[in-house]
């Protein structure tokens, strides 16, 4: 199962963490909420993947779909600190080429400022 945890920020940036397993069951649990935090808000967003243990193509599709919707409105998503196997999945389908993947929150903030 998966869940979303939001970290409150005062700088207008959304920071959310995806936790658990983003498989078909996890997607059902977080999909609508994640769209709400990202595509619906249309604000620069850090998605912390530190505690994400698993991701399948359904989960990758959710990330791409929301990042794409945000990009249409000039907002950027940055993925932060994926575990090695999650990073391997993201790399296998070219995610780092379209959504920046960085090692930590500070680096993520920098990537959002460069946008």
């Amino acid at each position, binding site marked *: 199962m998966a869940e979303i945890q939001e970290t409150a920020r005062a700088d207008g940036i959304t920071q959310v963490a995806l936790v658990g397993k983003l*498989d078909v*069951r996890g997607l059902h649990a977080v999909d609508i909420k994640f769209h709400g935090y990202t595509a619906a808000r249309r604000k620069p967003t850090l998605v912390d993947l530190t505690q994400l243990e698993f991701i399948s193509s359904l989960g*990758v599709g959710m990330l*791409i779909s929301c990042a794409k919707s945000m990009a249409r409105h000039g907002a950027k998503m940055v993925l932060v600190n994926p575990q090695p196997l999650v990073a391997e*999945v993201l790399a*296998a389908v070219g995610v780092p080429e*379209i959504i920046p993947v960085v090692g930590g929150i500070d680096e993520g903030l920098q990537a959002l400022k460069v946008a």
Partner: protein
Amino acid sequence: MKDVPDIAMTIAREVEAFEGLLPAVERFLEANAIPARQAFLARLALEEMILNLIKHSQGGSNQIDVSIQRHPKELVIGIEDDGAPFDPRALPKKRFDQPLVERAPGGMGIHLVCSMMDDVRYGRRADRNRLEMDIRLPQ
């Protein structure tokens, strides 16, 4: 010697049935002390290929046979169904070089399986598709 029996189950071609299979898969992986990388790949192979069948398979009955065998050097995941012939290895290579605004979020699952498993074999016998995916175990 095997620690726990291999998995051999028949499930309905439905998402709920796939979700019902997962606890048995987790028990198998844990009881066999399958390392994190290989367990991750096993979960990935099962989810991508079974959900693909549920979404796209045409014809045949409503059943999918699923097996996981632990051999000394690898895990072998088998998925068998009697739908229309479908060799996932024969699909055109998916392109992942489009810019974000042009990227479709679908079509990644089979690419992930074919690129991350150690071997993927397909055969058609007696009007049934048989897909086997190998995941090498550390020696």
